[in-house]
């Protein structure tokens, strides 16, 4: 595993190299082959939406990007850090996570801390940012997600949509080069889905590189540069949104779309 400095140097040397390159990733849960020969390249500034039936490996895929899930074969090159399957150490995971942000389905805010502390704990204790600076950054991103007035509240005092917006701000506070979203609206009441999607859309408009696992097909149409369809641990089809929804090439995607778009 390269050191931080070496990783940054190699990222600079490669110029506009892709921000993420997954090569022949294979992962098993026991005997179950969860990811099969995954190859995916994401350029800086790209917005990728990953969809597919439940159990198809979408979440597992994004969780291998930041090494939350170890994999048995293949290699991930992300933000200039190159990690092969046999080199997934705690140090590698930490190095990757200091460049990649993540938003979870269940928010996973820290319930014993104020909203503001949720945002500053990563920069202050993870990256050694000065407290005042982290505070300023946190207030900036809270304003971005429209929650400045809630800085001193505990997460439990907020609605689900507000909590997820806090989680997005928390991910941004670590100044990530890539943000992963793992079904960010799946745990929300319907009337709160839009506020979260709008926050994500404004982030996309700013040019943030994003990989989003979601069932929100409207979001995929509006925002995605490319849509990835997965089934049974494999990438079945990757296409631009228009082609993806109007001209699916594989039968499995066509039948998936016919099932989710007719109601």
């Amino acid at each position: 595993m390269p050191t931080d400095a070496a990783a940054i140097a190699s990222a600079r040397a490669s110029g506009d190299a892709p921000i993420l390159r997954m090569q022949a990733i294979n992962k098993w849960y026991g005997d179950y082959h969860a990811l099969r020969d995954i190859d995916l390249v994401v350029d800086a500034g790209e917005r990728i939406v990953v969809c597919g039936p439940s159990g198809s490996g979408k979440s597992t895929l994004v969780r291998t990007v930041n090494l939350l899930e170890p994999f048995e074969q293949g290699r991930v090159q992300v933000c200039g850090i190159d990690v092969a399957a046999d080199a997934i150490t705690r140090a590698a995971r930490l190095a990757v996570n200091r460049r990649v942000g993540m938003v979870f389905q269940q928010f996973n805010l820290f319930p014993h801390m104020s909203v503001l502390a949720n945002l500053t704990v990563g920069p202050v204790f993870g990256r050694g940012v000065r407290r005042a600076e982290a505070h300023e950054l946190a207030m900036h991103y809270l304003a971005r997600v429209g929650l400045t007035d809630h800085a001193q509240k505990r997460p439990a005092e907020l609605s689900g949509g507000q909590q997820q917006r806090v989680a997005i701000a928390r991910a941004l506070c670590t100044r990530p080069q890539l943000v992963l979203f793992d079904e960010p609206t799946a745990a929300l009441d319907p009337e709160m889905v839009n506020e979260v999607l709008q926050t994500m859309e404004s982030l996309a408009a700013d040019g943030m590189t994003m990989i989003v696992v979601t069932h929100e097909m409207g979001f995929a149409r509006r925002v995605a540069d490319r849509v990835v369809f997965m089934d049974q641990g494999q990438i079945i089809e990757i296409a631009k949104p228009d082609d993806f929804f109007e001209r699916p090439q594989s039968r499995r995607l066509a039948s998936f779309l016919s099932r989710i778009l007719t109601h």
Partner: protein
Amino acid sequence: MTTHFVRDAPIDARVAPAAAIAWPRRWHRAWFASPAMSALSLLLLALFAFACVRFFDWAIVRAHWLGQSSAACPGSDGACWAFVISRWKPWLVGNYPLAQIGRAWTCFGAFALFWIWVVRRPPAARPGPVLLGFVLLPIAFLLLLIGGGPLSFVAPTQIGGLLLTLVVTLATFATALPIGLCIALGRRSEWPLVRALCGLFVEGMRAVPLLAVLFIAATLLPMFLPRGIDVDLFSRAVIAFALFNAAMAAEVFRGGLQAIGRGQIEAATTVGLSRFATLRLIVLPQAIRAVVPALVNIMIAVVKETTLLSVIGVNDLLGAVEIGAKSPDWVGEANILTSGYVFLALAYLAVCHGLSRYSRRLELSS
């Protein structure tokens, strides 16, 4: 029939009715719902009343309050509180020298003030300062009580009675909690040897009765220590207590650590926190808060366990009763010993009931 309903004026919120059922009927329903229930209620009430009257008669009406020897308590129909009152010193402080007793009062007073501060804090407040107090107080108490330097030296074995219960409970708590936390973390270690040793310690301590641990500490431990190093009985007892209760605390902490979801640790990782920072900032604050009521329950157990100390010859409250009943002035009446035990039970009841109420309040608030 309407198929399309539209409300045109909103309904204002109203206050809930005070009580749906008046209290005499509620009371009647709870106690006399059926003939069998009525009979049972009356029977239990009668038994309770009978027991109360008998106890009141024995403990108050026929009791003997003052006197310096068993001559003050003739017969066995009333409690002999004279035994308790005239021997207040062994009860409270054991053999602690009378000339230095102000140091003992200071400890009692300091703890009383500390405890008032603890119970008056809002239950949701941070547990950190309280836990710190429980660690610092016993150190301060032992330094003050044993003395040395400007204060005259008092052998720890002279501490007895309620003072001993207080000091041993606090000292046990202060040592058992940090050790227990380390062991609980050790059981989750990535290093198999550490995991195995911590597991072995906990399982071993849980499988051995405390009394056996105490005897081992009292008799066997000196054989393992190098020549010339002599640990007095008091310290040996505290070490045994600390190790035994560390195993109990480790199990409590383990439960608390397990209650922290994987999502919390993953979220901490994704904001760039190291494993140690995650433990310190995310996992431990939540885990410790979750187990505070259970830790108070361990404290209740420790308070009661101090009675075992009399078995190895340390002068605790129980020891004070037994030694008192053997002294020439008080020997004779079985009633004297009974009165001592009843007083002992009431004293423990008061302390432990207070602790358990506190624990209940913490549980309800979380």
